[in-house]
């Protein structure tokens, strides 16, 4: 603790006296803000440090899910075309016996092979 000379002591006393005369409204404001600070400071749900990591993780997961499931973002478009062609063929098969015919699957393989040749 520093030793004050008489001038410094007078200044300190004057500042203390000044503080004693602080108006009622300011005192009330300070008490209210202190309570707010204590309430917000101790409430973990209101602290950014509490929910920021979880929020970041959720955002990353959402982004990853969008990347994985959105066809417009996905780069594997040729593969999708093949899959769509197969689904269309299967969808358009009017009779079940066609789908069980081995020649039908041979024909699909040939068609896909031709498509790959054209694409390459």
């Amino acid at each position, binding site marked *: *603790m520093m030793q004050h000379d008489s*001038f410094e002591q007078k200044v300190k006393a004057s500042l*203390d006296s*000044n503080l004693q005369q602080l108006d009622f409204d300011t005192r009330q404001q300070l008490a209210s*803000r*202190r309570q707010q600070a*204590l309430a917000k400071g101790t409430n973990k749900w209101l*602290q950014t440090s509490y929910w920021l990591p979880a929020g970041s993780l959720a955002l990353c997961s959402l982004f990853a899910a969008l990347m994985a499931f959105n066809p417009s973002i996905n780069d594997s478009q040729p593969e999708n075309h093949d899959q769509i062609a197969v689904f269309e063929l299967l969808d358009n098969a009017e009779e079940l016996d066609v789908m069980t015919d081995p020649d039908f699957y041979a024909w699909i393989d040939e068609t896909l092979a031709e498509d790959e040749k054209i694409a390459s």
Partner: protein
Amino acid sequence: MQTFLASIEGRAFSMAQYATGNRDDALDIVQDAMMKLVQKYSAYPAEQWKPLFYSILQTRILDWHRRQSVRNRVRGWLHWDEDDETEDPLSQFPAALSSAPDVQIQDEQFMQKLNVELRALPLRQQQVFLLRVWEGLDIAETAAAMQCSESSVKTHYSRALEKLRGQLQAHN
């Protein structure tokens, strides 16, 4: 923590008010500093709270001055002449009691003059002086709070003391 904040808030508010010249801004700064202390440092030992709190408070005061500086620059570019936000420093401190005895009148005059002269000091001199004389922080604690060297604290303090002595000599 509650008791500590209650014991320190008045002086912290006055320091912020000397630094900003604005009551509402001073209240905001003190509240921010209290919130930060509670959030970050409430688990620390109680004897560390005071230097930590004043370090946060000084950072908030500096931030306020930086924002004011930018705002004033923008106003300058836009040629705005609004000076209504700067309050009269004297109006923010208690008025002298008209019915007081002679000694009390002298003390009130000294207080009024002190308020004006403290407000007129450069920010760092003002805050170093208040932290040392009023809050009783030692040189190392003041240097930590002000984020400057101990030799800077000594220089700021001696300059502030010299100026105040010179200006308040007649009232001393």
